[in-house]
C-alpha cells in the first residue's frame, strides 16, 4: 500500500504534544494499511466530511456486540481500509492488567488487525481498531482460548461496566467498586453480549463523589460512593495544615507558588453550601448541610476523611449530546448500602426496575435519561418506589395544577353516574 501525501495531517505533528499522526505513521511501517487511514483522513479534512460508513452485520458467532462494523465509502482509493472493523475487549475492573497480558493483546492485534489500539475507549474497553470480517472468528477463538479474554458490549447492549480503582488503592472509597463492577459484569453476561434494550445502557462505579470514572456524566446508572454520618476530623492535622506542616492537596498543583496555605479562603470559603466555619483553630462542619462535594477532604486529606457509615448514591440518566443535549445523571436514590452478603440485591432490584420500565416506555434510540425527561421525574420516581425529597426538585413549580392520584382521593374515581345525573339533571 503506497504512502499518500498528507500535508494537512503533517501539520498536526508540529505542535508540542505527541501526535496520533506520528503514531499511525510509525505503525504503518509494520501494517501498511495504516497509510490508507492517513490518506482517507486527509481526504476527509479536504472534503470536510467523514468517509466512514457505520454499521453492518459483522460479529462473532453467539455474540450480538463487541464488534463494530466500519467501512470506507471510498474503498477503491483506500483498499487497506475498505473494511476496518473495531473490536472492543472487556477491561478488567479498575483497569489493572499485567504487561504480559498487554503484550499478548498487542501481538494478537498485530496478527489479526492493523495493530492500532485505543486505550481506553470512553466506555472503558480496550479498543482494537481495524480488521476485516474474515479475521474476526480466528481472532475471537485465539483471544478467548489462549488469552482468557472476552469481548465488551456495543450496540443496544449493556456496555462493559467500568469502575474506579476504589479500595484497591484509594482510602476514600466508600464501597468496593471493583467487587460490585465484577459481580454485575458476571451477573449480566447475557445483556453485555446480546442486545437487550431500545438503546445502549451503561453502568459506572465510583467509590466517592470525586467520581474518577465520570459516572455522573457518562452512565445511565451511576453508583457513586458516599457516607451518611459525619466527616471524620483530626483537629491536630487541621492545625498542621494551618502551620504549613503538610502540603495542601497532598502536594498536587505544586507547579507554582500559591503562597502560604489559608484555611479560610482555600477551604471554608469554598465550601459550596457554606456549612464550614472556624472556631479559633478548631474546624467545625454542619454535616446535615454538607453535600459531600469532597473539596475540603481533597485539600486536607490528612485531616478530613469520609464518615464510616458508607454506601452509595444512585444517579440515573446521563448522556452525551445526541438528541436534546448532554445531561448529568439525576440523583434518584440518595443512599443505598452496597451489600456483598446479599449479592447486591438492592442494586440489582433498582437496575431491573429501571430496565423493565424503560424497555416498555422508552422509544427506539432513547437513552433512559431522555425517557425520564420526556415523562417527568415524578413519574420515574414513582416507578422506582422512591419517596420524593427536596433534593429531587430542580426548580420551583411553574404548573398551577395539582394532579391527584386515585389512591389519594377518598372513594377513588368510582361514582354513581345515575345518582350524579339525578342531582344535576339539565
Amino acid at each position: 500500500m503506497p504512502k499518500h501525501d498528507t500535508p494537512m495531517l503533517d501539520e498536526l505533528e508540529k505542535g508540542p504534544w505527541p501526535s496520533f499522526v506520528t503514531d499511525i505513521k510509525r505503525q504503518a511501517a509494520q501494517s501498511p494499511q495504516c497509510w490508507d487511514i492517513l490518506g482517507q483522513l486527509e481526504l476527509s479534512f479536504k472534503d470536510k466530511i467523514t468517509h466512514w460508513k457505520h454499521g453492518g452485520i459483522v460479529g462473532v458467532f453467539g455474540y450480538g456486540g463487541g464488534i463494530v462494523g466500519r467501512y470506507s465509502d471510498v474503498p477503491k482509493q483506500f483498499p487497506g481500509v475498505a473494511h476496518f472493523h473495531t473490536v472492543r475487549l472487556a477491561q478488567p475492573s479498575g483497569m489493572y492488567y499485567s504487561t504480559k497480558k498487554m503484550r499478548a493483546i498487542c501481538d494478537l492485534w498485530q496478527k489479526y488487525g492493523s495493530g492500532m489500539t485505543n486505550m481506553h475507549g470512553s466506555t472503558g474497553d480496550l479498543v482494537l481498531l481495524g480488521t476485516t470480517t474474515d479475521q474476526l472468528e480466528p481472532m475471537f477463538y485465539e483471544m478467548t482460548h489462549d488469552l482468557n479474554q472476552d469481548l465488551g458490549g456495543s450496540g443496544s447492549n449493556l456496555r462493559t461496566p467500568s469502575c474506579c480503582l476504589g479500595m484497591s488503592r484509594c482510602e476514600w472509597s466508600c464501597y468496593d467498586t471493583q467487587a460490585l463492577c465484577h459481580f454485575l459484569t458476571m451477573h449480566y453476561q447475557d445483556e453485555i453480549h446480546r442486545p437487550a434494550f431500545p438503546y445502549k445502557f451503561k453502568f459506572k462505579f465510583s467509590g466517592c463523589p470525586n467520581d474518577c470514572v465520570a459516572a455522573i456524566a457518562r452512565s445511565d446508572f451511576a453508583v457513586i460512593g458516599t457516607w451518611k454520618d459525619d466527616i471524620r476530623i483530626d483537629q491536630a492535622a487541621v492545625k498542621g495544615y494551618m502551620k504549613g506542616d503538610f502540603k495542601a492537596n497532598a502536594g498536587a498543583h505544586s507547579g507554582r507558588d500559591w503562597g502560604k496555605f489559608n484555611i479560610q479562603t482555600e477551604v471554608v470559603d469554598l465550601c459550596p453550601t457554606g456549612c464550614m466555619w472556624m472556631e479559633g483553630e478548631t474546624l467545625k462542619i454542619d454535616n446535615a448541610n454538607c453535600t459531600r462535594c469532597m473539596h475540603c477532604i481533597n485539600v486536607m486529606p490528612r485531616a478530613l476523611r469520609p464518615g464510616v457509615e458508607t454506601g452509595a448514591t444512585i444517579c440515573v440518566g446521563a448522556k452525551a449530546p445526541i438528541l436534546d443535549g448532554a445531561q448529568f445523571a439525576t440523583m434518584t436514590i440518595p443512599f443505598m448500602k452496597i451489600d456483598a452478603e446479599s449479592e447486591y440485591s438492592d442494586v440489582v432490584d433498582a437496575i431491573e426496575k429501571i430496565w423493565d420500565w424503560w424497555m416498555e416506555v422508552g422509544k427506539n434510540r432513547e437513552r433512559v435519561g431522555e425517557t425520564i425527561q420526556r415523562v417527568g421525574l415524578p413519574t420515574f420516581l414513582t416507578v422506582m418506589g422512591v419517596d420524593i425529597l427536596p433534593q429531587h426538585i430542580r426548580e420551583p413549580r411553574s404548573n398551577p395544577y395539582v394532579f391527584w392520584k386515585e389512591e389519594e382521593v377518598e372513594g377513588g374515581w368510582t361514582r354513581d353516574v345515575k345518582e350524579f345525573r339525578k342531582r344535576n339533571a339539565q
Partner: protein
Amino acid sequence: MALSKEELKAAILEKAKTAPKPQLYIKDFYACDPDAKPRDVKNIANDLVKEGKMMFWSSGSTTMYAMPDRIKNEETRHE
C-alpha cells in the same frame, strides 16, 4: 392471553419478513404480542438469532434485527 413461545417466534419472523424495512428495532416486535413482557420478546428474538433465522445489524450504537436473506443485500452494498 400471551402467545406461546413458538407462536411468538412465528409472529416475530413474519413481522421481520414482511416489514417494509429490512432492519427492525426490538420494540417493533413488542406488538407481535402486546401481553408479553419486553424482556421475553427480546429473549425470543435473540434465540431466533442463535438459531440462524434472524441476524443482528448494528450501527455500533444501536442493534437491530433482520432476516438473513433481506440483510445480505444491504451488507453487499459495502463491497
